[in-house]
């Protein structure tokens, strides 16, 4: 800023000051800026709503943070009465311009007294510039955003951080399509109402209070107001956004806000960060956006530091192992507070891309070290507290590298798309795998059932086969018996035939002797037929032979052959018995066969 501009600005501020007719009190002798702002009545009025100790705490803390350079804490203490963000912004701007005008006035006085010191203290100059920015916020935000960004990289004066952060957040909120309408709707309960309620996340919130900046003077004591206000804000948010509730990590961001502003303002700002800066997606129960950010970051490392990416790949080291906390706490838990504040200054204008840039900057500024290290070494550098002291006094190195890191929206969008595609494919693969596993399981079950069935059937089959074998053996034996019997039968038949022919010859002789031959003819005829007849026929004919023999006997003729006839009858009887037996066996065999069939 050149001298002429500065003078013009001072002139304007002076006029404003006179118009406002505000008293300027000099509460502190040094540093100059402190006194310039501290006297603002508007500030005092607003501070009135805050508790005394809190206010003191803020001042003390601010002094510490600023190393006594400047510390008009009361800016941060202002509590707007209006719920309308636009009015709030206006009020803040008015207040800022009034305080800045006081500052300019004081500065001018000093300049006059000190005969125009060669160059003002750079801190003072920076403070003046920022007050000017705040008083013309809309212009700066809309028309000079590039320059605004440069200035944010150079750092916001600690004293103005609260106001600057709130201005940035409100502008982001207004620009964001999702937001404003839903914020502070009539239905939304007020902060006071929220903190009066009970939250289901109470236990976890309480548990984390002492574990959020446990070494920071504001939060280390259980009785300290820091833990109390942190509890209030986390509780209020968990009730305000029931879907997210409370998620570990978010308390670090809120604590960073609470280091600069009172609880209700921190709560309002946190809502904007969650919704309009899209932090919310990382904190939802699914934490869905965290793997997305980690994927994007991994892709950025590959694009920016291919060698390092390859090295990490060889070590089996993924961003999820070290960078989760970077994204979940916006670096607030990983770096010392001053470095975290500096990044947060820029984050509020750049949003999520700043987180990637800072991540790349950390890799860049430790590049050589990381390249040499093995898994353990890399994790020691990038892990939990590895970076805590790394940028103490070297904040500029980090900010410079962050600014230089090239991350474009286009890139991020491309990686996001890629992530979703890969995720979808992965999900498809997983569901396909699940489907196949299910199918496999069902088939296995079916297979087992079939095997069991097969086992039963095989058992049955074996039983039947055994039975079949038994029956076959029996049949075979019967066949042999049958053959024997047939053989016997044949022999008997032969005997019978020879017997019959003997009888016939004998009868023929007798007939020739007696002169009658009819009976002999009949007998001979019968015996000839018998040889070819079936068994049943044979039985009948056997009976007729008996009859013949009987009739022969009755006649009392051929007595010389009676004995032979009797012998034949005996044989016939034996044959009959055999046949009956065979029939019986045949029945039995049939029975077996029937059984086998069953």
């Amino acid at each position: 800023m050149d001298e002429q501009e500065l003078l013009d600005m001072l002139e304007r501020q002076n006029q404003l000051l006179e118009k406002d007719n505000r008293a300027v009190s000099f509460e502190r002798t040094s540093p100059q800026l402190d006194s310039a702002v501290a006297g603002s009545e508007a500030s005092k009025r607003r501070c009135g709503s805050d508790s005394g100790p809190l206010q003191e705490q803020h001042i003390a803390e601010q002094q510490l943070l600023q190393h006594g350079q400047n510390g008009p804490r009361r800016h941060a203490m202002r509590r707007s009465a209006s719920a309308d963000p636009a009015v709030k912004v206006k009020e803040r701007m008015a207040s800022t311009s009034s305080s800045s005008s006081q500052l300019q006035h004081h500065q001018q006085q000093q300049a006059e007294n000190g005969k125009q010191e060669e160059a003002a203290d750079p801190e003072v100059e920076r403070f003046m510039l920022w007050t000017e920015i705040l008083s013309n916020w809309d212009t700066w935000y809309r028309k000079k955003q590039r320059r605004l960004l440069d200035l944010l990289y150079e750092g916001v004066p600690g004293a103005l951080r609260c106001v600057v952060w709130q201005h940035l957040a409100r502008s982001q909120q207004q620009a964001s399509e999702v937001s404003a309408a839903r914020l502070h709707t009539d239905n939304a309960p007020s902060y006071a109402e929220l903190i009066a309620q009970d939250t289901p996340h109470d236990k976890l919130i309480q548990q984390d209070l002492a574990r959020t900046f446990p070494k920071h003077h504001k939060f280390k004591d259980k009785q300290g107001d820091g833990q109390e206000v942190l509890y209030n804000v986390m509780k209020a948010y968990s009730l305000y956004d029931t879907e997210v509730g409370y998620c570990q990590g978010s308390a670090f961001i809120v604590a960073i806000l609470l280091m600069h502003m009172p609880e209700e303002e921190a709560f309002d700002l946190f809502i904007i960060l969650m919704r309009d800066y899209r932090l919310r997606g990382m904190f939802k129960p699914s934490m869905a956006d965290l793997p997305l950010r980690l994927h994007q970051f991994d892709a950025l490392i590959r694009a920016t530091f291919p060698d390092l990416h390859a090295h990490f790949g060889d070590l089996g080291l993924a961003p999820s192992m070290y960078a989760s906390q970077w994204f979940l706490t916006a670096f607030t838990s990983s770096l010392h507070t001053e470095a975290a504040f500096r990044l947060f200054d820029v984050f509020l204008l750049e949003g999520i891309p700043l987180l990637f840039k800072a991540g790349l900057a950390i890799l860049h500024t430790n590049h050589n070290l990381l390249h040499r290290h093995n898994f353990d070494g890399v994790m020691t550098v990038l892990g939990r507290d590895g970076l805590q002291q790394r940028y103490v006094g070297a904040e500029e190195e980090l900010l410079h590298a962050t600014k230089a890191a090239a991350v474009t929206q286009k890139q991020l969008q491309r990686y996001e798309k890629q992530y979703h595609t890969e995720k979808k494919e992965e999900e498809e693969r997983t569901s396909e795998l699940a489907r196949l596993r299910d199918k496999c399981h069902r088939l296995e079950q079916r297979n087992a059932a079939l095997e069991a069935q097969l086992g039963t059937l095989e058992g049955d089959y074996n039983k039947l086969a055994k039975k079949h074998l038994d029956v076959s053996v029996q049949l075979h034996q019967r066949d042999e018996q049958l053959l024997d019997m047939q053989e016997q039968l044949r022999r008997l038949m032969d005997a019978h035939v020879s017997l019959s022919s003997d009888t016939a010859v004998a009868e023929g002789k007798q007939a020739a002797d007696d002169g009658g031959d009819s009976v002999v003819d009949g007998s001979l005829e019968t015996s000839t037929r018998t040889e070819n007849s079936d068994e049943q026929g044979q039985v009948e004919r056997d009976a007729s032979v008996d009859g013949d023999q009987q009739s022969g006997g009755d006649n009392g003729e051929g007595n010389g052959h009676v004995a032979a006839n009797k012998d034949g009858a005996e044989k016939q009887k034996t044959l009959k018995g055999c046949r009956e037996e065979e029939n019986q066996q045949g029945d039995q065999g049939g029975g077996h066969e029937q059984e086998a069939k069953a």
Partner: protein
Amino acid sequence: MATRKKVLLKVIILGDSGVGKTSLMNQYVNRKFSNQYKATIGADFLTKEVTVDDRLVTMQIWDTAGQERFQSLGVAFYRGADCCVLVFDVTVPRSFESLEAWRDEFLIQASPRDPEHFPFVVLGNKVDLKDNRAITENRAKSWCDEKGNIPYFETSAKEATKVETAFLTIARAALQQEKDEDIYHDFKDAVNLDDVPDKKQDGCGC
């Protein structure tokens, strides 16, 4: 196996938020206790070289965030774990009741080859808070017995009670698991050789 180089044992510590996972890890690795630990966000890890049964091993111990919603983020470092340590707070019944869920979730995500025999060790921490004790040793032990005789230790990270003993058991279990994995790999190779002719036979069958 005799020629095997340095052994790296990967151990994962799981359990509800605030049960003392970070404290136990730090007590074991750095032999110190602090009540100023930050809440673990995401994951963190420490390594320690120890001699287990005359073997020098490096233990890579992973500490995790305890909030339930962080469970799904574990995948990257759950894989290849050699032992899983389940921690609960003996003064908080709920943290004991959560053990089952932590165990199941771990098995799903780490998907070890033989989930039935994957080594777990359970630590009931904060036994120094005698007056607030809510879970008895017997109750914890019987749960561990039910789950396949999981070794159980009553520890106090604050007073360094049983921490060393517990981690030695953890190291042994991890080492055994590591060996089993090796045997499995050898075995798998042997099976593979047999597999080839089998496949050929199948081919002929078609």
